[in-house]
C-alpha cells in the first residue's frame, strides 16, 4: 500500500510539475499576476509529493519489502540499517528519485525565499526549474520506476554490492547530487534572465549563495568519493581520472569558475553575459555527467546499469536543455547590457584569468573524457585516456592559476598595479622559496618538479595568511585596532581566505603523495617481515572472524619503528554473504607525516601471503584541504550581505539596485 502511495505521489508530482511549468510561464508572458502566483504553491506541492514518494521507497527498503523489484535487486534483510537506507540511492532508479527530490527542494526554496524577486522573474525561474523536474520525473516513471512490483515477491533480496556498504560511500551520492542539482538553480536563473531579457546585480546576489552551497556540497561529495576509493579499493589511489570521476569533476571546475565570475558580476556588474553562459555550462556538465554514468557509453571501473534505452532518453533530455539554453543565449545575450569597465590588471582581470584557466581546464578534461567515444565512432579504435594525458594537460593549466591566487586577491577592483602587488608579496615569495629549499634538503629523491609544486602550495597558503594580515594592518596598527579590523572584515573575505588556504593545503598533499609514495610488495610467511619508510612490518598470521553480514580473514601485522614495537594493524579480506563477493579492507595507520597502508593479498601455495605495503606521505592533506575549502564556502554563505535573497524588499522592483 505504502509503495502504491509512493508511486501515485510521483505521478501526481509530475502533473503538478507540468502545472508549475505551464501556468506561471503563460502568466509571466501575459503579465497575469494570478497565473504567476500559481508557481510558488505548485513548487511546494511538487516538493512535498516527491518527498512522500521518496519516503515510501525508503520505507520499502527499511522494512525489506522484497515485493518491490528495486528493493529485491539492491537490498538484503541482514544488511545493517545504515546500508538499508543508503541502498535507496545505491542504484539507478532510487538515485534518480533522490536527484528529483533535491531538484524539487531547490524549486521550493525559490518559492519560499523568492518573494523579493520581481514577480515575472520568479514565475519564469519556477517554470524553468519545473521543466527540468518534468523531464526527469517522466524519465523515472517511463524508464526507471523504482516502485515496480515483483510478482511473486521474493523471500530474500540479492544484497547491495559490498564495496558500497561503507559509511563514506553512504553519504557520497547525496552530497554529489546536491552539488549537481544545485547548479540547476543557476541554470534556471540564467535561462529566466535571458527569457526576461534583463539582468542586474541582484541576479548574481541570488545565484551566488545557491551556487556556493552546491559547490561546497560537490566539493565534499567528490572528496568523500576520493577518500573512500583511497581506503576501500586496496591500493591507496585517491584519484584515477576515471571517466565517472571526470563526470563529477567537470561541473566542479565550471562551478568554481562560476562562483568567481558571479563575484565580479555582483560587485561590479561586469561579465554578465559570460556569467550567464557559465551558469548554463555548469548545469549542462551535470547533465552530461548523468548521461555518461547512466548510459554505459564509457568504460569505467564504476558505472551504472548499461541500458541503452535510458542512455538515449537522458541524451534527449540533455540535448533539449543544453541546446535550448544555448540557443536562447545566442539570440538574447547581446541584448543584455554590459556593465562596469575595468583595466586588465585589476581584481576583475585576475578573476577573468581564473575563469579562462578553469574553463580551459574543463575543456581539457572534457576532451580527455569524450575523445575515446569520438575516436571509436570515427574509426572503431578503442582507446583509454589515462593519467598521463591529464598530467600533461590539466596540471600545466593549474600552475598559473595557483600562482595567480595571491596576486589576484591583492589587486584592487577596477584598476590595479601589478608591480605594487608583487612587491607586497615579496615576503610571501621569500617564504615559499624557503619551503622549496627545505623540501629539497629533506627529500633528495623524486621528481625535480615536486619541490617546486610544494613551494606553489606554500605560496597559496602563506599568501592567504599574508592577505589577511595586511587587511587587518597587523604590522601597522595597535592591537585593539587590529582586533577591531579582524572582527569587521566581512565573513565572505574570511571565506575566500580559508578556501584559498585549503587549496594550498591540498596542493601540498597531492604533490607529496604523488612524488614520494613508496610501495613494497612481498610474499611473507607468518613471522617474516618487510621494511617500508622506516617501518618494520611483521606478518603474524591470519585468523577468521565473523562480521554482521560477512566472513573475514584477518591478517595481523606488528609494526615497529627503529626496533621498538609500537603498533598492531589488522588488514582483512572479507567475503560477504549476499551477494557473495570479496572485498579487501586495508590496514591504515595515519600519522602527521603520512599513512602506513598495509594490504593482505592472496594466499600463496606455500602457506604465505602476498602482502602489499605503501607509505603515502601527507596524503591526508588532500581531504583536509577539501574540508577547509568547504568551510571557506560555509563562512562565505554566512556573510550577512550574501544571505539568500539578499536584495531587500525595499529594492524589490528596481532594475539596478545601488551597491
Amino acid at each position, binding site marked *: 500500500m505504502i509503495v502504491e502511495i509512493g508511486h501515485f505521489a510521483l505521478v501526481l508530482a509530475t502533473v503538478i510539475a507540468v502545472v508549475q511549468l505551464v501556468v506561471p510561464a503563460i502568466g509571466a508572458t501575459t503579465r497575469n499576476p494570478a497565473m504567476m502566483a500559481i508557481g510558488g504553491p505548485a513548487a511546494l506541492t511538487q516538493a512535498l509529493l516527491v518527498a512522500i514518494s521518496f519516503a515510501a521507497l525508503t520505507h520499502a527498503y527499511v522494512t525489506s519489502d522484497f515485493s518491490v523489484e528495486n528493493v529485491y535487486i539492491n537490498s538484503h534483510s541482514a544488511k545493517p540499517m545504515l546500508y538499508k537506507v543508503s541502498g535507496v540511492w545505491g542504484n539507478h532508479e532510487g538515485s534518480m528519485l533522490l536527484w528529483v527530490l533535491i531538484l524539487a527542494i531547490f524549486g521550493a526554496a525559490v518559492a519560499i525565499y523568492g518573494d523579493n524577486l520581481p514577480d515575472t522573474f520568479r514565475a519564469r525561474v519556477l517554470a524553468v526549474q519545473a521543466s527540468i523536474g518534468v523531464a526527469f520525473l517522466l524519465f523515472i516513471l517511463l524508464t526507471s520506476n523504482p516502485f515496480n512490483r515483483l510478482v511473486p515477491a521474493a523471500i530474500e533480496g540479492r544484497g547491495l554490492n559490498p564495496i558500497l556498504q561503507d559509511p563514506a560511500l553512504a553519504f557520497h551520492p547525496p552530497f554529489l547530487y546536491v552539488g549537481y542539482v544545485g547548479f540547476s538553480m543557476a541554470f534556471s536563473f540564467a535561462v529566466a534572465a535571458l527569457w526576461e531579457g534583463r539582468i542586474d546585480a541582484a541576479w548574481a546576489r541570488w545565484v551566488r549563495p545557491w551556487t556556493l552551497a552546491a559547490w561546497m556540497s560537490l566539493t565534499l561529495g567528490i572528496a568523500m568519493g576520493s577518500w573512500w576509493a583511497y581506503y576501500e579499493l586496496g591500493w591507496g589511489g585517491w584519484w584515477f581520472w576515471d571517466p565517472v570521476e571526470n563526470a563529477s569533476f567537470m561541473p566542479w571546475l565550471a562551478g568554481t569558475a562560476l562562483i568567481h565570475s558571479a563575484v565580479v558580476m555582483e560587485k561590479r556588474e561586469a561579465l554578465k553575459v559570460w556569467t550567464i553562459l557559465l551558469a548554463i555550462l555548469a548545469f549542462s556538465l551535470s547533465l552530461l555527467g548523468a548521461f555518461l554514468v547512466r548510459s554505459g557509453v564509457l568504460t569505467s571501473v564504476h558505472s551504472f546499469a*548499461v541500458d541503452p534505452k535510458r542512455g538515449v532518453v537522458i541524451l534527449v533530455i540533455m540535448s533539449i536543455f543544453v541546446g535550448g539554453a544555448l540557443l536562447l543565449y545566442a539570440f538574447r545575450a547581446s541584448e543584455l547590457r554590459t556593465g562596469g569597465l575595468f583595466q586588465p590588471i585589476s581584481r576583475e582581470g585576475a578573476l577573468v584569468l581564473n575563469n579562462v584557466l578553469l574553463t580551459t581546464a574543463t575543456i581539457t578534461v572534457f576532451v580527455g573524457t569524450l575523445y575515446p567515444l569520438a575516436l571509436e565512432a570515427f574509426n572503431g579504435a578503442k582507446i583509454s585516456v589515462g593519467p*598521463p594525458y591529464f598530467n600533461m594537460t590539466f596540471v600545466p*593549466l593549474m600552475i598559473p592559476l595557483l600562482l595567480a591566487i595571491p596576486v589576484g586577491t591583492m589587486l584592487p577592483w577596477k584598476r590595479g598595479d601589478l608591480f605594487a602587488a608583487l612587491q607586497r608579496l615579496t615576503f610571501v615569495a621569500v617564504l615559499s622559496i624557503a619551503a622549496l629549499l627545505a623540501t629539497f634538503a629533506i627529500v633528495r629523491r623524486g621528481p625535480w618538479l615536486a619541490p617546486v609544486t610544494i613551494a606553489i602550495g606554500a605560496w597559496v597558503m602563506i599568501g592567504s595568511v599574508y592577505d589577511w594580515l595586511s587587511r587587518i594592518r597587523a604590522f601597522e596598527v595597535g592591537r585593539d585596532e587590529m582586533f577591531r579590523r579582524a572582527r569587521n572584515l566581512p565573513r565572505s573575505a574570511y571565506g575566500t581566505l580559508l578556501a584559498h588556504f585549503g587549496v594550498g593545503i591540498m596542493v601540498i598533499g597531492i604533490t607529496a603523495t604523488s612524488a614520494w609514495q613508496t610501495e613494497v610488495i612481498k610474499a611473507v610467511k607468518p613471522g617474516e617481515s618487510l621494511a617500508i619508510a622506516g617501518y618494520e612490518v611483521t606478518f603474524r598470521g591470519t585468523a577468521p572472524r565473523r562480521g554482521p553480514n560477512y566472513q573475514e580473514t584477518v591478517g595481523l601485522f606488528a609494526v615497529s619503528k627503529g626496533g621498538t614495537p609500537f603498533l598492531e594493524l589488522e588488514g582483512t579480506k572479507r567475503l560477504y554473504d549476499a551477494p557473495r563477493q570479496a572485498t579487501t579492507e586495508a590496514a591504515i595507520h595515519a600519522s602527521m607525516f603520512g599513512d602506513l597502508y598495509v594490504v593482505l*593479498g592472496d594466499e600463496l601455495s606455500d602457506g604465505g601471503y602476498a602482502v602489499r605495503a605503501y607509505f603515502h606521505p601527507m596524503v591526508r592533506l588532500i581531504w583536509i584541504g577539501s574540508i577547509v575549502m568547504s568551510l571557506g564556502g560555509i563562512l562565505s554563505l554566512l556573510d550577512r550581505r550574501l544571505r539568500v535573497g539578499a536584495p531587500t524588499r525595499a529594492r524589490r522592483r528596481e532594475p539596478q539596485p545601488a551597491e
Partner: protein
Amino acid sequence: MTRKQRRGTLLAVAIAGVSAAVLLVMFALRDGVDYFYTPTRVMAKEVGPGVSFRLGGLVAAGSVKRGEGTKVAFDVTDVTATIPVVFEGILPDLFREGQGIIAIGKLEPSGRFVASSVLAKHDENYMPPEVAKSLKEQGVWQHVGKPDDTKSAPKQ
C-alpha cells in the same frame, strides 16, 4: 582603455589560454593514451612488442599459476585466441578464472604479455564493455545473470 580595447585584451587572453590548451591536448593525446586490443587482434599482429596497451578478455579456465613470491601467470582469452600473461603483484579481489579483466602492459617479443596492472570491476557480474562487445562480435557471448543485473557503484 575603451570598451573595445578591453574586450580585445580579454579576447586575446582567452585565445592565448585556449590555444595553449589545444596544443597541450594534441601533444598529450599522442602519448598519453592506451589502445585496447583483444587477444584475436594481438594475434593478428596489430600491435608490436614494447608498445603499452590494454589487453581485455576472460581469464582462461585452469590457466592461473602462482609462481614464487607474488608472481602469477595466466591466460587471457576471447575464445578465438589466447595470450599468456605474467604479472607480479596483488590481483584484484574479483580476479578469478572465467572473469572478464583488463590487463595493462606490453608484449614481449616472445608473444608473452607483461602486465603492469590488472583491473577487474568491483562487481561480480561485470564484464568490461570492450570485452563484452568483442565476445558478442564473435558470437560467444553468454550473459551472466539478468540483463538489468549489472548494477554497480554509483559514483554519480
